[in-house]
């Protein structure tokens, strides 16, 4: 289940949906939040833009890759778009598996890969009403590169 939405989500509900997936012994989840102090002190919110259609197909493809590399039973990814205040949930990745090693690895892979290949862009909105686009971090590119298998 992959969902791009403006609404918030409930992690308990998401995890229960994952645990309904047959012979599940392990659920690993990641939730990203709007940090209350980013690189700039005066940020009051984020605005998230995306490329409808491509976003979903990129994440579907990442979930398919995860399913080929690890033994997993279900994946749920939710990514919010639009304006998000400090402290709000941005993204959820949850993976159900029979075994915890696979659940952890697939969850971290999905999150790292999503950050460098899913077409989302973040803008920081500051107290004075100005806004500026966030730059991609080299550390995020390095993390995603670390999962390459060639």
């Amino acid at each position: 289940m992959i969902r791009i939405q403006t609404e918030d989500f409930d992690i308990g509900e998401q995890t229960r949906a994952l645990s309904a997936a047959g012979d599940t012994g392990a659920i690993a989840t990641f939730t990203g939040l709007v940090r209350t102090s980013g690189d700039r002190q005066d940020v009051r919110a984020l605005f998230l833009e995306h490329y409808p259609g491509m976003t979903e197909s990129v994440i579907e493809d990442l979930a398919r890759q995860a399913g080929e590399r690890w033994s997993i039973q279900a994946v749920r990814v939710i990514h919010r778009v639009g304006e998000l205040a400090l402290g709000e949930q941005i993204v959820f990745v949850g993976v159900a598996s029979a075994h915890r090693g696979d659940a952890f690895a697939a969850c971290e892979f999905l999150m790292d890969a999503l950050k460098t290949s899913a077409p989302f862009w973040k803008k920081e909105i500051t107290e004075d009403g100005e806004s500026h686009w966030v730059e991609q971090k080299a550390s995020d590119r390095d993390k995603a590169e670390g999962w390459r298998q060639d």
Partner: protein
Amino acid sequence: MSAVVTVKFFARLRETLQTDELELPIGEQATVAEVIDTLARRGAPWDVLKGEQPVMIAVNQTMARPAHTLEPGDEIALFPPVTGG
């Protein structure tokens, strides 16, 4: 009978170009690199497409390289490195 492609722009690029989408006629065997050259030759602000900031390319919603050869009706997207999650 010239073939046409759609070019979409996102995020900082959309704002700089004040354009979210345009249609562009292309020749046979045209590549994404040629489309970008054609647009950049329009001068400022379009020269940003050949500027210092990296430009990512998708063709029909899949990441592509500049050498990618286009078909009539293709949807090209140009955007800055992604920053979701």
